[in-house]
């Protein structure tokens, strides 16, 4: 589903949230989510992403602004009348009820008939492949099974919107990856709208149609996973999504879509001007480790710098190389393990080069080296 033109199913309009009346946890959030989309709110802890989810679920009132669901403002709708399914971080299964009773709860409060409840509960349990576990109590299930029950319970009353608050955080890596695919498939087959909160970028990249990267109460960038990785618009996003080499410098001239940047060590490079101010201002450039060429031929790329190899890590399909480039000793290059790749030795000096297109000049930031 496209992000423009279609009617927003969920809409945040100028939403602000403050718990103490002074500091804003969420600062002026504007976000449109079309029906059927899987949107992930990604960010470090304390970035405001969970608060946004809680406001959408109705557990936290918005300090300012309005949230719309299917065109209706919902600021004054209590949580139990919002018809939104939610999977909680710790699953929040009712420990005194069996799995089937947990799933029946939302149906019973909607006064459905016994027969209807039974069919729906069975269908939901079958969907998460727990058909035989209806009579068990949550405490008798493994973490992964509890997680599935939580998903089934959020879906059983057929809401159009599902919220998930770091639902896979407590699972081990393998199970987490498996559940990512299962949730993705459930989303695709049921065509529900999902708003997912996580701090795990791999999870966000795997599952989402669009990712909203949060930091400091602001959406830094919202776009599809590939755009987010290949075309980050702020230094924070470049650093937060994937691995990133950061080079700091001062802008010498801004041209048509490109700019010349003088590095702190004196070299000049050409970069794509993405988020830069006028000549003389500082910029942090972002460069993905796999876009760097070792010993490029002649003038095949516009930017060529010297790099001293500090460390080689053999990883099978590629060789991860840490080198010192332009005064940064944490410059990472991923060299694919192809036939006849450049011979490398620790301590040797090589040329490193890249296209100006791959070097994105962004807002200046002091913080963080490569992720």
């Amino acid at each position, binding site marked *: 589903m496209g992000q423009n033109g279609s009617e927003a199913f969920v809409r945040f309009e100028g939403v602000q949230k403050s718990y103490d009346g002074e500091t804003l946890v969420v600062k002026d959030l504007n976000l449109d989510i079309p029906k059927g989309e899987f949107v992930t709110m990604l960010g470090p802890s304390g970035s405001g992403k969970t608060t946004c989810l809680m406001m959408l*679920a*109705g*557990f936290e009132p918005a300090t300012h602004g309005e949230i719309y669901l299917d065109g209706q403002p919902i600021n004054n709708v*209590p*949580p*139990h*009348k*919002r*018809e*939104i*399914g*939610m999977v*909680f*971080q*710790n699953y*929040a*299964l*009712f*420990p*005194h009820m069996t799995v089937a009773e947990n799933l029946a*709860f*939302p149906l019973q*409060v*909607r006064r459905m008939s016994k027969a209807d409840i039974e069919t729906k509960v069975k269908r939901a349990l079958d969907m998460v492949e727990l058909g035989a576990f209806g009579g068990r*109590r*949550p*405490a*008798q299930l493994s973490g992964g099974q509890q997680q599935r029950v939580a998903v089934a*319970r959020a879906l059983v*009353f057929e809401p159009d919107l599902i919220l998930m608050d770091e639902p896979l955080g407590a699972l081990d890596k393998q199970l987490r990856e498996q559940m990512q695919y299962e949730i993705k498939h459930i989303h695709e087959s049921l065509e529900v709208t999902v708003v997912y909160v996580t701090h795990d970028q791999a999870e966000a990249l795997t599952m989402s149609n669009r990712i909203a990267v949060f930091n400091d109460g602001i959406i830094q960038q919202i776009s599809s996973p590939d755009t987010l990785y290949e075309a980050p618009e702020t230094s924070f996003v470049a650093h937060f999504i994937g691995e990133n080499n950061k080079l700091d410098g001062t802008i010498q001239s801004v041209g048509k879509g490109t700019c010349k940047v003088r590095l702190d060590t004196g070299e000049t490079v050409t970069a794509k001007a993405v988020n830069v101010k006028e000549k003389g201002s500082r910029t942090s450039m972002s460069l993905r480790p796999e876009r760097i060429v070792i010993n490029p031929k002649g003038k095949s790329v516009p930017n060529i710098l010297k790099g001293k190899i500090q460390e080689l890590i053999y990883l099978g399909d590629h060789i991860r190389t840490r080198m010192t480039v332009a005064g940064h000793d944490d410059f990472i290059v991923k060299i694919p393990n192809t036939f006849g790749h450049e011979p490398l030795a620790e301590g040797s000096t090589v040329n490193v080069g890249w296209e100006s297109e791959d070097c994105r000049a962004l807002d200046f930031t002091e913080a963080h080296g490569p992720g």
Partner: protein
Amino acid sequence: MALPAHVEPLERAWYYTFRVICALIFLFLIIPILVVIPLSFNALPYFTFTPEMLRFDPAGYSTKWYADFFSNPNWQGAVRNSVIIAFFATIIATVLGTLAALGLSRPEMPFKKAFMALLISPMIVPLIISAAGMYFFYSRIGLASTHIGVIIAHAALGTPFVVITVTATLVGFDQSLIRAGLNLGGSPQTVFFKIIMPLILPGVISGALFAFITSFDEVVVVLFVGSYEQRTIPWAMFSGIREQISPTILAVATILVLISVLLLTTVEMLRRRSERLRGLSPG
């Protein structure tokens, strides 16, 4: 548990001293209660063991004090009053105490400590002071010497127990369960009765039991606030000891011990059952 070989003499000495102390505690706590039981079967109106009893002569034993207890209208009235007062006082204390504990456990509740201290105060303030205060206050508003007065007084004494036990249960309560209940479409009332209540039930039951026992055993306040019409079992025992010394008191004491043991056992079993249902221990 045997002592490991490496213990030092001091540790060894403490090990045995500790056991002696425990035994003494049991002796002084339990023996006075146990000794009442055979004495209540005394054939003669004495509070001591007669030579016949010590010889285990059947003639030295009798159940006539029990017969007296079950036929004497003075005692039967006391039983009725005790049950009625304890029942209603327990209900009031349980409802109020549970609600207070729920409110006090909410994160947004201001002045938590102060309110808690206020609610617990009937446990801390010497009973005679509460009793005297209640007497003067209740007399002024026409509640002295009424069943309602005694019930309210006992409810005030029982509430702290409920507040404490329910608060303890709520410490481990996962607040996201409430959110989950609301999110799934349960109204706040439904969430309270279907989710919160079943989970805090063990604390509520324990608190209710303490409140019941408090009212059932209480003598000071009922002496002040009540009169003969509101006489409870302890009231009747107290005045019995002062006025006409009869071993019926011993029979009553035995019955009370029996009731207490039964009540505690039942409630403990109920509590374990609901704890199992809560999923705290494997079923």
